[in-house]
């Protein structure tokens, strides 16, 4: 299935400055693996060392949070949009 993954601004530098990437996948896990396969540097920003999605990064399929679906096993259909939404705080340099 061709799905679009939307890359949030803070991570675009690690995805060739693109705002979205098309990948072929049947589940969210496959889509993220395809994404980090192409853009290796994204991996450490999305996943911790034990391979789990970082807790300050949320993933949505269309407008639903995957935590309330089947998590990374959530199936995706042709034309679905996967959004990566990290927490942002604003302008401080902390």
């Amino acid at each position, binding site marked *: 299935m061709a799905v679009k993954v939307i890359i949030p*601004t803070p991570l675009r*530098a690690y995805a060739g400055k693109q705002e979205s990437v098309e990948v072929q996948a049947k589940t969210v896990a496959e889509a993220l693996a395809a994404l980090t396969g192409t853009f290796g540097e994204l991996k450490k920003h999305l996943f911790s060392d034990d391979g789990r999605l970082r807790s300050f990064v949320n993933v949505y399929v269309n407008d639903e949070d995957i935590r309330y679906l089947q998590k990374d096993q959530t199936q995706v259909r042709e034309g679905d949009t996967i959004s990566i939404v990290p*927490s942002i705080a604003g302008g401080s*340099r902390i």
Partner: protein
Amino acid sequence: MATKIGVAAPSPGDEKPRVSLSKEEVMRYSRHLIMPEVGMDGQLKLKQAKVLCIGTGGLGAPLGLYLAAAGVGRIGLVDFDVVDSTNLQRQVLFGTSDVGKPKIQAAADRLRNLNPDIQIDTFEAHLSSENALDIMKDYDIVVDGTDNFPTRYLVNDACVILGKPNVYGSIFRFEGQITIFGYPDGPCYRCLYPEPPPPGLVPSCAEGGVLGVLPGIVGTIQAAETLKLIIGKGEPLVGRLLLFDALAMKFRELKLRKNPDCPVCGTHPTQTKLIDYAEFCGIRGEEAPVAATNVPEITPRDLKTRLDRGDDLYILDVREPHEYQICNLDGHLIPLGELARRVNELDSSREIVAHCRSGKRSAEAVEFLQKAGFRKIWNLKGGILAWSDEVDPSVPKY
């Protein structure tokens, strides 16, 4: 019998003192009064409302202005910062003549000038676990216009504990997020993000910057949501995360769900008190966050000494092209995000000094290059900012 102007019709058993509008207020708010969605009832609700605005900066500026303009009867402002010239690119509450003044004072003056009929309370303080509940308790609604993770978690938790809605807005470069947390049966910030990113992992605003108008848009949306909550009209952003991209000029919406296992607002909360948020976010005390790595460093003065001596040093600049245009040390530019791909441009037999703006990105670059086998590599401590401070003040800081 003479009719009083603008008096709320009393409800049976209503013991509150009747609030009314003066003739001048009726004139001032006439554009609200003639709309059925607001009308006299709505305007009187605004007059009786108490809203606490945390932060008077990029988000706080349009927020404060529009709440004051709308006639919110009592507005509290919390900020400990001082106006500086870099604020004026987006913090439109302030003017050039306010540079050097406490933000809270400049903000209060401006808002009182806009609307002398409302009450402005000022809290020139760092919001903390010690004072948050006290400061927030007298207000109906809290609006989060802050700029760091520890305070966001503090505001969230305090609002849940006190049962107050938290109108949340946040920005990064040209993207914004807006929602309402802490509404009865709605999610809180922790439902969305149980934990903050560790310092140094999410790209900092040192390489981010922000489109000046962006907090203007997001803060104005926060003001709109606050007014809607007060007058009880329209659909509030409860359970909805509004995402805004100013460059694409697109709005998207994602569903936010209340997490029944949320430690703060869930069915069986395990955290019912405020905690140490600096510790929660991995920042110890007042120290600046330690760089994630321990890399070999060279100070600007030592670098200058070595360069003057004629040492063959290769300067690697890992900033972005637009930063290079502001000022540079004549270094070879490879932005950090491209380093992995372009590492073959570097000669590992040479001595390399990597620098960025403040020393954080270049520390990451040095760590990466060490792992790639580079042995003669140093991080310029404090970056080009420190070079300007310690070696060459003619280099502009940004």
